[in-house]
């Protein structure tokens, strides 16, 4: 049961250099259903991701705070899930049978908020309040303020255990609903994840899909220079999971990966999404400096120009 495609608004105008509009313009883009055909879905996701990134970078600039690098690395995954894959829509946020996404790397809240705005879950005009006093858009997501948020995250290593719980609940209910959880790669250094992986394997949670944003950068350095994860796929497999590697910026490939869940093996699926922090912006991409650096007005203008052609 995929919801019908919402009207697609693709009205973003080219930015005036040096002038930063308050939000990305053109949001919401809405969800697109499977009946639209694969090419149309991919085009929709690509355009959606572009608008989400536009919106996000302007929002972060306006707030003077945010984690733009790690937001841009997951934008394509979030867009794919919220604009198409997941069975959840704005009028369904309290439906027990909804699919769930838990953003474990909660510092990338900006990407979640702009995606939720794009998909119609929160009013786009709220984006201007990001980080402001009394805003519903806190630096990390708060489910008490936004109905579409499934879990309050921010401290790393909380999302996967919670996702295991929602997946066990679905299994107990005999429900086909699915749980997705999106983690950072540095985040996998938290032991709580490995606890949860063992539980997921023991309970045969085929309805659970974890996606790791494999951008190879963490807060202060490259992952390999901090606490290497390789051989990551071997680790995940040894913990009893199906492992799929994918280009985390390729919407078509992501669609295929998510379509293959639940795996026939009955195992939970771990998607290693190979991404770049700051993608696709030339001066941010794969650059650890952009963990929580805030772009200047000039940088926003440059980025928006690059996004036009991305």
């Amino acid at each position, binding site marked *: 049961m995929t919801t019908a495609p919402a009207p697609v608004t693709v009205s973003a105008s080219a930015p005036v250099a040096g002038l930063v509009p308050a939000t990305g313009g053109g949001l919401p883009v809405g969800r697109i259903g499977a009946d639209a055909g694969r090419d149309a879905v991919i085009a929709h996701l690509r355009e959606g991701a572009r608008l989400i990134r536009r919106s996000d970078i302007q929002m972060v600039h306006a707030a003077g705070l945010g984690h733009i690098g790690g937001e841009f690395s997951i934008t394509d995954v979030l867009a794919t899930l919220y604009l198409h894959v997941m069975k959840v829509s704005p009028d369904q946020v309290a439906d027990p049978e909804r699919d769930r996404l838990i953003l474990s790397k909660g510092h990338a809240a900006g990407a979640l908020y702009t995606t939720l705005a794009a998909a119609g879950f929160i009013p786009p005009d709220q984006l201007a309040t990001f980080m402001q006093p009394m805003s519903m858009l806190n630096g990390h997501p708060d489910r008490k303020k936004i109905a579409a948020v499934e879990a309050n995250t921010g401290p790393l290593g*909380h999302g996967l255990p*919670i996702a295991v*719980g929602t997946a066990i609940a679905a299994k107990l209910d005999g429900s086909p609903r699915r749980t997705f959880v999106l983690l950072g790669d540095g985040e996998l250094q938290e032991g709580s994840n490995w606890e949860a992986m063992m539980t997921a394997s023991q309970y045969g949670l085929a309805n659970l899909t974890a996606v790791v944003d494999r951008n190879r950068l963490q807060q202060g350095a490259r992952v390999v220079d901090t606490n290497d994860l390789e051989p990551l796929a071997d680790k995940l497999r040894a913990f009893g999971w199906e492992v799929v590697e994918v280009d985390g910026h390729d919407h078509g490939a992501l669609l295929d990966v998510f379509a293959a869940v639940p795996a026939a093996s009955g195992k939970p699926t771990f998607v290693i999404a190979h991404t770049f922090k700051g993608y696709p912006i030339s001066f941010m991409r794969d650059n650890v400096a952009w963990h929580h650096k805030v772009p200047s007005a000039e940088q926003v203008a440059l980025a928006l120009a690059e996004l036009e052609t991305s």
Partner: protein
Amino acid sequence: MTALTASAPRAERALHDCRDAYAATLIELAAADPRVVVVVNDSTGSSKLGEFGKQFPDRLINVGIAEQDMVGVGAGLANGGKIPFVSAASCFLTARALEQIKVDAAYSNNNIKLCGMSPGMAYGELGATHHSIEDLAWLRVIPNLTVIVPADPVETAQALRWAAEHTGPVFVRVSRMGVPDVNPAGYEFVPGRAVTLREGTDVTIIATGTVVSRALDAADDLALAGISARVLSMPTIKPIDTDAIVAAARETGAIVTVEEALTSGGLGGAVAETVVRHHPVPMRFVGVPDAFAPTGSTSWLFDHFGISAAGIDAAVRDVLDR
């Protein structure tokens, strides 16, 4: 710690392990409501949940020895519409999963019930790693979390039933050491409400959980010496019953708190903060002082620290200076 007065004769009282009431109540709740599930960390036996597991095998979720995962899984089950009772030794549940309790339970306002088993010094000889005497101080300050410390099996059962009905995060301390029934027939637990178990005019003894019976014993002994002690049982540590505390301060002029916990930060801390805010009176604190306990059995440690009728008696005389 030697008593300053003769002991009053004590009636023979049967002692109960509150885990029995706990286990029976969870079975009752699970039978009535399919949403009730239990999450454990290899603690099925120590939580006395073997029978629960037999009756509801799918609804006893054992994550293994992994407390962070355990509380997170509980939060996820709550998100999925279940009413999870997370059941683990209080020392590990609270110390090992405190951020999960803060964030996944309280800040997220998930409908999760955290059951701290065998708290206090129930694992006396196992040492400070296994004593959960900081839990009240740690949890009491977390916003949006209700903290309950039942005193006997009836109160344990009632607190659990209330927790199952209530939507939101609750911590219940489930005692293992033997306790007598302390609440009167027909007793009904009301969250946030202190229970006056004995009227008195000279001093108020405020006790929680396992030590309420000792407070009653001390009041008996003090009566022999002409000291009239009010005894309040305080089953809810958060929110604390401000009115009852203020009335005690105003009407009796002195307070002694008693808990199977550190003398800092827990019940004693909550009462001290209330008193200075509303009606300052002298206080004494009976519990574990600022030290890791030596090796010893639960009952030896209670005596060692003066968490006994004699110790309470001495604290009362000290605060009254007579």
